[in-house]
């Protein structure tokens, strides 16, 4: 008698049930079944199963099936919804591509595991330092909260803000021609030049009443930006937005854009007499004054929003993303203290913090990008920022703001710069300087000596030309015909 394994028996019984065995196979199986009750039992169960399956209740007929189907055939849509964004025939190719990417990614990650480990541990350390270990402990306040319009204008044009009432320490922002921008907190009195006040500015540049309003608006926006760019925490950590370094350049550019050509000449003269770090050079102004004004305000607002801050404490410097919402800070202080604590004590604390430590020994943490240098000496704490570090300047006009060396030569060796009055854009180190002699004759000259300062003079001929242009502008603004105005005069 033939013997069967368990699997063979199941297979044979299934075929037997369907009548698919030949005569020999059938006889052999029947012999086996008669000798094995288990096999007989299994056959019986299979027969019962077959019967149960055959008795399965049928679904009720759907009398509207054809009606629905014919309606669907009228408007055939996509045959079936697919969850794949590509035809199914591409599944193998996509799967292979996915596997290849995973493998390559895995190899890359494995090869760079050390750097990745360092990167993540470094990042987690920054977050830990900033938030958990209380680098920014307690409340945070803007350092410059109650500065007036004159101080805002002074910062806008000269890049300086006094930190104390005696003006013995100050925040300075300026630009090194090639390298980038610099933010300094320094001790020592700044050289007194002619005072920079809004009143002086309006008088000397001869603003119209409309322009005065525009400048006032700009100063209000600038005040907000300064306020949001330098903050100090309860534990005397200083939080600085690197974008602060170019704010005054943007402001000079925007003020110039709101002026008429002759006013820009006066503006340049104003800047020069105050020993300002910038001068303006107009190439071409395309928009009308209203559009320029609108664009100016848009530009200043656009400059806002850099969320990477430099956090300086007594013993560390960190460059990290910090979530600071200046409006909520203002609201908090209005609610808690009704009035913001006075600025000077805060500034004094910061200066004391900087003075009490050895500034030159600032550790260069790994969190600082290469384009950001922080160092100091006994007189100043300085942050140098490469130009590509800050967002590109947004200008809706073709006004170049050019760096100019100030009359007060810096004693610190780290300060570099070139003295010049006119420079052709893009000439690099070669400076093209335009001179005027007493007779009003102009001539160009290459200046070989960096650091030498030339006195720019405005000859009588130019003054008379400016006067004539002013008169013309006034006539146009008054709307009177030229001949009638003459008659009135």
């Amino acid at each position, binding site marked *: 008698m033939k013997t069967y394994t368990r699997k063979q028996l199941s297979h044979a019984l*299934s075929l037997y049930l369907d009548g698919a065995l030949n005569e020999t196979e059938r006889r052999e199986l029947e012999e086996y079944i008669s000798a094995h009750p288990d096999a007989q039992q299994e056959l019986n169960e*299979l027969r019962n199963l077959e019967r149960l399956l055959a008795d*399965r209740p049928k*679904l009720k007929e759907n009398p509207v099936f054809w009606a629905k*189907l014919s309606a669907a055939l009228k*408007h*055939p849509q996509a045959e079936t919804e697919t969850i794949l964004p590509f035809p199914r025939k591409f599944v193998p190719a996509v799967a292979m591509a996915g596997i290849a990417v995973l493998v390559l990614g895995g190899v890359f990650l494995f090869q760079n595991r050390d750097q990745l480990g360092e990167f993540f541990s470094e990042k987690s350390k920054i977050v830990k330092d900033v938030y958990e270990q209380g680098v920014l402990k307690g409340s945070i306040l803007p350092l410059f909260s109650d500065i007036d319009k004159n101080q805002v204008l002074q910062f806008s044009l000269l890049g300086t803000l006094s930190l104390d009432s005696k003006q013995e320490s100050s925040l300075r922002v300026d630009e090194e021609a090639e390298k980038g921008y610099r933010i300094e907190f320094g001790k020592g009195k700044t050289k007194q030049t002619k005072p920079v006040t809004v009143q002086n500015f309006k008088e000397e540049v001869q603003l119209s009443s409309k322009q005065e309003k525009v400048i006032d608006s700009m100063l209000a926006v600038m005040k907000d930006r300064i306020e949001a760019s330098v903050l100090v925490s309860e534990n005397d950590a200083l939080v600085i937005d690197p974008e602060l370094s170019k704010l005054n350049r943007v402001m000079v550019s925007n003020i110039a854009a709101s002026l008429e050509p002759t006013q820009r000449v006066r503006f340049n003269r104003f800047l020069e007499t105050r020993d300002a770090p910038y001068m303006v050079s107009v190439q071409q102004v395309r928009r009308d004054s209203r559009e320029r004004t609108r664009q100016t305000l848009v530009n200043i607002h656009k400059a806002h929003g850099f969320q990477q801050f430099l956090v300086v404490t007594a013993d560390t410097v960190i460059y990290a993303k910090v979530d600071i919402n200046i409006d909520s800070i203002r609201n908090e202080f209005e609610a808690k203290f009704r009035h913001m604590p006075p600025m000077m004590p805060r500034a004094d604390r910061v200066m004391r913090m900087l003075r009490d430590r050895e500034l030159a020994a600032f550790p260069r943490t790994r969190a600082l990008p290469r384009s950001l240098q922080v160092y100091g000496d006994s007189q100043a704490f300085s942050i140098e920022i490469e130009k590509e570090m800050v967002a590109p300047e947004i200008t809706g006009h073709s006004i170049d703001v050019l760096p100019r060396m100030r009359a007060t030569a810096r004693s610190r060796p780290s300060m570099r710069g070139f003295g010049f009055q006119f420079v052709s854009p893009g000439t690099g180190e070669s400076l093209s300087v335009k001179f005027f002699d007493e007779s009003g004759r102009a001539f160009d000259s290459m200046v070989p000596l960096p650091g030498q300062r030339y006195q720019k003079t405005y000859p009588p001929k130019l003054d008379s030309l400016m006067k004539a242009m002013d008169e013309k502008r006034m006539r146009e603004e008054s709307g009177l015909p030229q001949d009638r105005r003459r008659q009135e005069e």
Partner: protein
Amino acid sequence: MRISNSVAAIDPPWPVKSERTSVAVAERKPASAPTQKLDEKSDDVLITLFQSGEEDAFRILVQRYQERVRNLIHSIFHDPFLVDDLAQEVFIKAYLALPNFRFESSFYTWVYRIAVNKSRDEMRRRKVKKWLSFASMAETTDKEFHEKTAVHPVNNEAQELVAKGLELLPEKFRVPILLKDIDGFSYEEMANVMQCELGTVKSRLSRGRAMLRIVLKPLLEEAE
């Protein structure tokens, strides 16, 4: 719109096929005298008529097999909400592919093959959806609702157990049982529907039955 008895011998070019796709099949008169004659014709004749432009032939084919297809789908999914939608997709696919039918198999094995393939697609889709989203939650709710409200046939306990047992089987073992024991297909027809070798069909059927017998053993012993 094509006229139903217009062309006989010319193979319809592709544009004609697409035009046919938008033909209002339901607008035709269902109980006309020529249709009664169509009822008596074999599947192959109906397909030939359809290929030569007789749209109504397709209606006869659908009416002839719609319940078998619906029951097959119901046996696979046990989901009354799915049956009609999936059966409709099956016949739409058949309608679009029928002009290219080459008579290498019978119509009903061909339609069953479409139904089995559609069911496989649906199973894959359900697996992915279940994995990706909360869709399964909604399905479960629908199913529970149906189970609570459905009117079950007599001997429902045994049949429910059989249905549960079938659900437990993998699709490749479930389909041969349904085709053989419920629809009475031959091995050759099953191989045609399942698109596999005859030996594979026999093997899968025997393994499926063995698995189902183990699952339903108490019920099967009781039935003796």
